[in-house]
């Protein structure tokens, strides 16, 4: 059976492969690419901030620049596309409030014009800018995307695709090895500070599509790393895992609904941590007076074995030395021994919420707007092997391969969507497996019922908006299970 590109994208839904297909073109639709920015932004930014600082009591500038390359080696085609994005934001403040001006026209003339307009509107209470000596935090990956020609990057993906084809299963109708390579630079210039942060990141993976009767089955494994082209490879284990997911035969009907003992695989735990903790315990969400999490600060929200930290300083996928407001990054325990311990904050959010600033003011490259956003979040692993987690629940379900989660801020009620549920009886898998399921529960209830944590962790990465990651182990807990999008 052959598939058109549009069919594939529809079937693949929100997978990483669908993004690669869109980005790399192929049959049926236009591919898009942009031009690189060749302006030396640091000196232009320093000049602009100096001009503005001369008339404003507070002034700073931020610039971001990114080259993002999509790579695809797939059944029926291969390709690469590179998008370039650059943005500059100048920020001024006085007693009347804060003004920010952002432009995607990063030519020196446009930035100077922007600075001149802001300077002319200043109250005249500024002084000479002294940003101090420039400080660079520059990643130098083993194979640097800034210096290697993109034409050769597909070799590793071609090899992964070839290895996947040796699996030889005729039910697999489409396979793709795909990757995103980001080369990103961010500058901040303000009083006493002139910082450059450069990061190289790679998300590489393999996706396979098979039919099970009239139902498409998708197997996908994606691994993200703060690294260079050397991270483009896809391991044999990942290929085998993706094939296994695509070829699995499912039990007819819907998963048995209702409360159950559960083993949640690391992807499901990561989805819970992302939607239930990371996106809630920030000053961006903290303003709601009825936010359920607000009333629980300093109180238990998880079992004592559960600790969740955000640490931009640990050299992870989204790490940095300073945030986009110039504040130093630091390790923040969000849940410490089961207690809700801290809130991620940017400068403005910290002032509103009355919490300490934590160095999480991060700007999106699309619009240059700042908000409190997490970096690398980790739930600390336990000591239990996978078999012990099954034994810990006795009878119940294993929930695997999360596909997103939603949370109601008023109630902290969470819904996690996942691809598989497997039955466990007397601590062993029975072979029953259902597709398209949901796990529901209040976040404190799901995390409070944790009875065991696995020893191995998985890291899920995202490049949507700003780079983030969540690392989590498998857990044994209790929650409500239901079919997803039932008839």
């Amino acid at each position: 059976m052959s598939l058109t590109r549009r069919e594939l994208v529809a079937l693949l839904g929100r997978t990483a492969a669908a993004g690669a297909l869109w980005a790399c073109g192929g049959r049926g639709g236009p591919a898009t690419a942009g031009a690189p920015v060749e302006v030396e932004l640091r000196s232009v930014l320093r000049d602009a901030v100096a001009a503005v600082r001369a008339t404003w009591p507070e002034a700073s500038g931020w610039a971001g620049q990114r080259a993002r390359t999509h790579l695809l080696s797939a059944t029926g085609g291969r390709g690469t596309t590179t998008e370039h994005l650059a943005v500059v934001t100048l920020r001024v403040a006085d007693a009347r409030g804060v003004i920010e001006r952002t432009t995607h026209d990063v030519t020196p003339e446009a930035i100077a014009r922007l600075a001149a307009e802001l300077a002319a509107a200043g109250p005249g209470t500024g002084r000479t800018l002294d940003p101090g000596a420039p400080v660079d935090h520059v990643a130098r990956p083993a194979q640097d995307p800034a210096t290697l020609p993109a034409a050769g990057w597909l070799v590793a993906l071609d090899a992964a695709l070839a290895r996947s084809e040796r699996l030889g299963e005729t039910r697999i109708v489409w396979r793709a090895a795909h990757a995103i390579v980001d080369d990103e630079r961010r500058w901040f210039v303000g009083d006493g500070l002139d910082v450059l942060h450069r990061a190289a990141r790679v998300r590489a993976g393999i996706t396979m599509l098979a039919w099970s009767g009239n139902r498409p089955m998708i197997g996908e494994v994606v691994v993200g790393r703060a690294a260079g082209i050397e991270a483009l490879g896809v391991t044999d284990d990942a290929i085998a895992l993706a094939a296994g997911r695509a070829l699995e035969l499912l039990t007819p009907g819907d998963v048995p609904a209702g409360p159950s003992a559960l083993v949640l695989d690391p992807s499901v735990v990561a989805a819970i941590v992302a939607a239930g903790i990371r996106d809630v315990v920030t000053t961006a969400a903290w303003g709601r007076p009825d936010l359920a999490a607000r009333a629980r600060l300093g109180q238990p929200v998880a079992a004592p074995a559960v600790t969740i930290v955000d640490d931009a300083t640990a050299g992870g996928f989204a790490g940095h030395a300073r945030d986009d407001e110039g504040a130093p990054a630091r390790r923040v325990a969000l849940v410490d021994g089961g207690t809700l311990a801290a809130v991620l904050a940017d400068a403005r959010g910290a002032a509103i919420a009355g919490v300490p600033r934590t160095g999480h003011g991060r700007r999106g490259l699309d619009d240059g707007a700042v908000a409190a956003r997490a970096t690398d979040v980790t739930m600390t692993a336990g000591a239990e092997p996978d078999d012990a987690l099954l034994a810990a629940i006795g009878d119940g379900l294993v929930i695997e391969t999360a596909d997103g989660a939603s949370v109601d801020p008023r109630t902290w009620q969470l819904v996690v969507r996942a691809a598989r549920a497997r039955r466990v009886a007397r601590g062993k898998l029975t072979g029953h497996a259902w597709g398209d399921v949901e796990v529901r529960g209040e976040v404190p209830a799901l995390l409070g019922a944790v009875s065991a944590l696995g020893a191995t962790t998985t890291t899920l990465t995202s490049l949507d908006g700003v780079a983030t990651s969540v690392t989590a182990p498998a857990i044994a807990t209790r929650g409500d299970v239901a079919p997803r999008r039932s008839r």
Partner: protein
Amino acid sequence: MSRFDELLGALRGRGDLAEWLARGRQATRVTATRDAAGALTRAAAIGEVAATVHVDAATGRGSATVQVAGDRAPGPLIDAAVARAGAALGPAWRSPPPGAPARVDVFDARLADPERAAADALAALAAAIERAGAATVTASAEVEIADHAVTTSRGLAVRWSETAIAVRATIAVDGLAATLAARGRAAAQLGVAARVDAAVARARAAATARPTPPGRAAVVLPAELLGGDAAPVLGALAALGDAALHRQGLARAPLGRAVVDGADGAAQPLTVRSDGTRALGPESAPLGPHGEPVRRFTLIADGVLVGLALDQREAALRGVPPNGGARNLTLGGGASSADELRGDGVLELLELTHADVEPLTGHGALGIGLAWLHGAAGTPPRAVRGGEVQGDLVAALLRSRRTRDQVIDGAYAGPALVWLPDLAIL
């Protein structure tokens, strides 16, 4: 010379292109925010210049799009786009002669000064919140004014300006919060005062809300949700007319047939129109993204699929005029009163926590953030929250009952209330 003019010069000098389209957009977007930390004003200058090139070969046509940014000359970028287009060949097609752009009003002169307009809209929002006896947690108003230019190798050269405005707020009443959002092309479309009042009512209702009882129930979707968080439900309706899906045999229902069994004989047969020419409609425009003129068309007539959304390429492959795709969906009115639809056991959704709708099948889940559970006539409804509405939402729309009125909320136009039969509440 502007970047757009540079691009035109580069495109016109080439002989290796079968066709091309250049488009430019220069926008200023101003966001005014007020919260406990004070005032924040953000202004962003957005410039986008792009070209789509088409190359023909013996085996078909390939297309690629390139964005022109920074200070690079467009020539080498077009070279790269041509190479990519040559590696992406599909069926052969040729653009029809350019049609007249839709004559549609997408500009509100009162937003011509976006900084002032954003400040005024924010002030109006703050005043409405204060009048309603609520406190502002955060409130923002965003105004955008954009100039568009489209030029093609077939002789089309069109320029137009458009405006857009949106407001968002989180309000607090007695320690309870609710959010509100509205968008349009003119400030007068937003209905800020009514939305603030509704948000205050929702915040108060949430204080007494109990868990949603599971089972099966009829569900009422109000226009405020169809124009906002429940928009993916309308997206599944639009997918019924996706021309590419039809060409590939993937569409749910063939043209000329009832979308679902019995839809043409339903008690209140559904008619759905696409109106990309509605004055000040958020999705209205003179031209589509590929330079095709936007036209009104009927997607579903009395439950029968009768129209397709046709961009330049899909129209050319069929040899029919394009219509610019599905925009500003309009649902035909029904024959019911609001009281008739709010019957015993009916769940009227007020807030969603999420909308997870699969466009190809119409099956989906709507997270119940807050809803009214109606009781017997004469008894007040109970506030409930939690759980999901699940089922085939497209089939439910085709079998829906609706109020007689027509209201506009964002891109949605249609009945104020849409009653969906027999959905699972989990």
